[in-house]
């Protein structure tokens, strides 16, 4: 870690570590809270962490004529937006039905 802190400009590893941390925080939000919206917040963070990786690899990888990393990040943002819309609609629909957003109480699928 020492050489990381010493570098004058951030390297790929810096970004990967940040992305990993963001990913873990997203996972934390998605796993440890009972409110359905926290789960969605967590999932959004997971996707953002992945996007950060795409961009970082695009920037630090070998230069290519196609900005593939950027493109994938863009599509991923679009998909995340779709996911958020449907997910939140589901939360509202479920809330109307169960009158709660506590995911621990959605147990109709319990095996």
């Amino acid at each position: 870690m020492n050489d990381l802190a010493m570098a004058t400009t951030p390297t790929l590893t810096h970004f990967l570590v940040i992305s990993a941390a963001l990913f873990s925080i997203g996972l934390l939000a998605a796993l440890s809270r009972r409110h359905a919206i926290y789960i969605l917040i967590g999932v959004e963070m997971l996707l953002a962490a992945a996007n950060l990786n795409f961009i970082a690899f695009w920037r630090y990888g070998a230069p290519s004529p196609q900005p593939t990393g950027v493109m994938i990040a863009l599509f991923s943002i679009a998909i995340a937006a779709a996911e958020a819309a449907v997910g939140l609609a589901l939360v509202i629909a479920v809330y109307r039905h169960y009158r709660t957003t506590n995911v621990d109480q959605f147990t109709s699928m319990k095996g």
Partner: protein
Amino acid sequence: MSTVAFFAIAIFTLAAALAAASFSKLIHAALCLALAFIGIAAFYFSLGAEFVGLAQVFIYVGAVAVLIVFTILLTRRESDAPVQFKWSGAVVALAVFAGLIWAIFKSPLPGGAAPAVAPLTVKQIGESLMTSYVWPLQCVGLLLTGALIGAVVLVMDEKP
């Protein structure tokens, strides 16, 4: 870009993200999420992907965060419920973090500063979208339309 700026953005982003994950008031968490996304957009800017950064701010802060707060509003009855925190989730998250860090440091990555490349213009992105990525673009368009209709249908009143 200097390391100082990098660490400043990193601390800002991670703090906002952590706040979003741990604040007990849902509305605060959602607002912190917006902050975290602004931080990530700053990362994109620093990596030379301005367009993605702007799109990130536009979509996440302008649309997704608004959606989330609207949903919070519509499901308000529960939002002030006592905090229930599952520690098992924290343990798993921590383990994943450790695993990721270990994997990052174990894999051979190119070190040093990023190679100097010409800045990515919006025109380039547009051309890529309309040539090599036109099929994914159409698919995403379909997906978004589907998501739009699906979301509307889901929240529509069941009563006629």
